[in-house]
């Protein structure tokens, strides 16, 4: 049982990207990604498109911790949700342009992540998950009690969307999407840079063999805390954008079911892939939206079934399985070319 206590996430990651840098497939995916991100509000109701982007970033923040550092946080809603509230409160009370409000939310999330991270990283595996859950429940409780500030069950309503008085962005969800997307992409860029950096390499090493990393002289706890705070900041950025998009922040954003949903999205997309986050978010958010309007009475059945199937058969998620397939194809082609 002792070896089950440590979290060693079963993901096949090599040190670098699986798809070789010079492969045109990478460029195709890169272009495709931009095309989809920019064209999304044409295909999909713009507020839903913004949701996909926000949840995508949220999932990436979870993946940063889970796939790259080996820590499953079951309380990440604490950062998404508290940033949503702080963003809302700043927007309501100061009238600043909303990117500043989102920044405030993000900073708040990072600030509370420091003590939480400091305490939590002493444990690993399921214990880490339980501690993060416990802290998230405490924050939920505080938000519920402090209803003069947060509105309690009613939620924080009427969050304005100020943007230098540019009417199109302030009132039309379509144009707002592009500004919101810009903020989200900043977060995506940070996540990508962290992963493809020496710091990121140390995280992966910690994930695979913390004892060895410690023996090499690295302060494992400090790396984990930094990763935790960055992840919290990204989750906060996503949560702030979400709040501005909806004009609304509710206790649901701090609920453990939200923590569960983002883990579901991350696993669906693929742990340790980073880009699995947006893919998983697109699937789950679109599915939920479609099911809610279709009158079908079994959202949980569909989502639960998909989840069970993914965990059993496609553990590496959509992106991960796709990546495995591509690398296998490339290997075969290389073998054929050689023979």
């Amino acid at each position, binding site marked *: 049982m002792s070896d089950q206590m440590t979290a060693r996430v079963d993901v096949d990651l090599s040190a670098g990207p699986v798809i070789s840098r010079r492969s*045109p497939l990478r460029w195709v995916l890169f*272009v495709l990604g931009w095309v989809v991100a920019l064209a999304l509000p044409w295909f999909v109701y713009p507020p839903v498109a913004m949701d996909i982007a926000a949840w995508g970033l949220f999932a990436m923040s979870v993946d940063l911790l889970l796939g790259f550092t080996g820590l499953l946080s079951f309380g990440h809603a604490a950062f998404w949700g508290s940033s949503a509230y702080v963003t809302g409160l700043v927007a309501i009370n100061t009238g600043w342009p909303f990117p500043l409000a989102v920044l405030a939310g993000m900073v708040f999330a990072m600030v509370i992540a420091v003590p939480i991270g400091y305490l939590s990283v002493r444990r690993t595996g399921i214990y880490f998950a339980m501690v993060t859950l416990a802290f998230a429940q405490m924050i939920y409780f505080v938000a519920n009690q402090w209803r003069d500030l947060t509105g309690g*069950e*009613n939620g924080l309503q009427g969050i304005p969307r100020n943007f230098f008085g540019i009417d199109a962005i302030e009132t039309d969800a379509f*144009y707002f999407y592009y500004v919101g997307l810009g903020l989200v992409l900043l977060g995506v860029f940070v996540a990508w840079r962290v992963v493809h950096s020496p710091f990121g390499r140390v995280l992966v090493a910690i994930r695979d063999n913390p004892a060895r990393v410690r023996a090499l002289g690295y302060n494992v706890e400090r790396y984990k805390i930094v990763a935790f705070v960055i992840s919290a900041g990204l989750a906060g950025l996503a949560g702030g954008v979400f709040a501005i998009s*909806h004009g609304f922040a509710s206790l*649901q954003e701090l609920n453990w079911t939200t923590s569960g949903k983002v883990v579901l999205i991350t696993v669906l997309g693929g742990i340790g892939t980073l880009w699995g986050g947006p893919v998983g978010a697109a699937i789950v958010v679109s599915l939920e939206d479609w099911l*809610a*309007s279709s009158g079908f009475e079994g*959202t949980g059945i569909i989502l639960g079934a998909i989840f069970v199937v993914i965990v059993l058969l496609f553990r590496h998620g959509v992106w991960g399985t796709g990546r495995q397939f591509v690398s296998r194809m490339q290997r075969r082609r290389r073998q054929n070319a050689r023979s």
Partner: protein
Amino acid sequence: MRTSTRRRRLFSAVAAAAIGSLALAACSGGSGGPQSGGSSKLTNDKIVFGLLNDQSGVYKDLSGPNSAVAIQMAIDDYKAKYGDSAVAKSIEIVQADHQNKADVANSKAQEMYDRQNADLILDVPNSAAALAVANQAKAKKKLYINVGAGTTALTGAQCNKYTFHWAYDTAMLAKGTAGTIVGGGGKSWNIVYPDYAFGQDMNKSFTAAVTAAGGSVGQSIASPFPSDNFVTFITKAGDGNPQVVGTMHAGGDLINFVKQFNQSPLKGQVQLAVGLMFITDIHSLGVDQFSGTQFTDAWYWNFDEQNKKWADRFKEKTSTRPSFAHAANYSAAMNYLEAVQASGTDDADTIVKALEGKKINDFFLRNGEVRAADHNVVHDAYLAKVKTKDQVKEDWDYEEIVKTVPAAEAYAQPDGSCKLS
């Protein structure tokens, strides 16, 4: 050489596909694209009702998809009444499930107004969701008639020109129940309420009503929300030997509370007053556990012949009896259509003017009036008592109406916190 050609072909194929699908989507218009604003004048030559409620959670049976059936009945009756001279020839219903979440309600309301061209949103149980939709109605300048939620804030601090509160509110529940019970001798109360906005609202309303009727509230005990273990709170409620214990819980919490109350020593010693109870709660807990409990109901299907006739029609279509929410949704939809008929347009401001101050008498609203001051729709309420098992003649025949509380008595006067704009 061969491989690089293949790679180039792959690249161009994928790029072409991407651009192609993009162009296709742009041409088809999709469901996205920039939204246009603008008001409606029998927009798109049709009326669209947006039914937004809980279709999968605890309030599904209270209102849920069957309210769409009720609204359709209103549409059919309207068309039958006016035939060819009907102003609204094409009437649609769109539905969405807000899953009892205020943020989902917020998004869905926005979507209904913008994307689905809803002229009127109906129902919306759950006070937090109800308030969120009120904000959307105000922003989009479109009508919203709330049936399912109880919060007085809808006609108080959070009121607005486009929002109407049709069926009940917490003050009405308090005045009816508290007044009757205090009048019947239950003067000393302890209240247990769930510690969130609705519960606090109920606690305030009931404390005021009990005191106004000549009684007194010894303790107001807050219980965490949600919860399924109330044993300690029930014990606390027994402190000081009150005559009445009032529970302000709703839904699953109420069922837990009553189940545990009936097992505690307080049963039989102390009278149980229920702040908010729906006929669906009685159905799910069983008549036995609630027998004798008194509560205020906005409408009961078996009250008189007029109600029963409508309930029979409803039963034919749904195989079950209607709750007050189904009847209220019918009434709201019907009266909206009548207003459209009378004004010849579905312009929101015109309809608002047509409804304000209107006196209405249909099978749901008895002696009803749409108050101009706060858009609260007052009407007669009913003090109901839960029957004993042998009194029940058919499924859903659970209530005995003890007293009709006239509209003027049932509702509180507007307290001035509403500034209609």
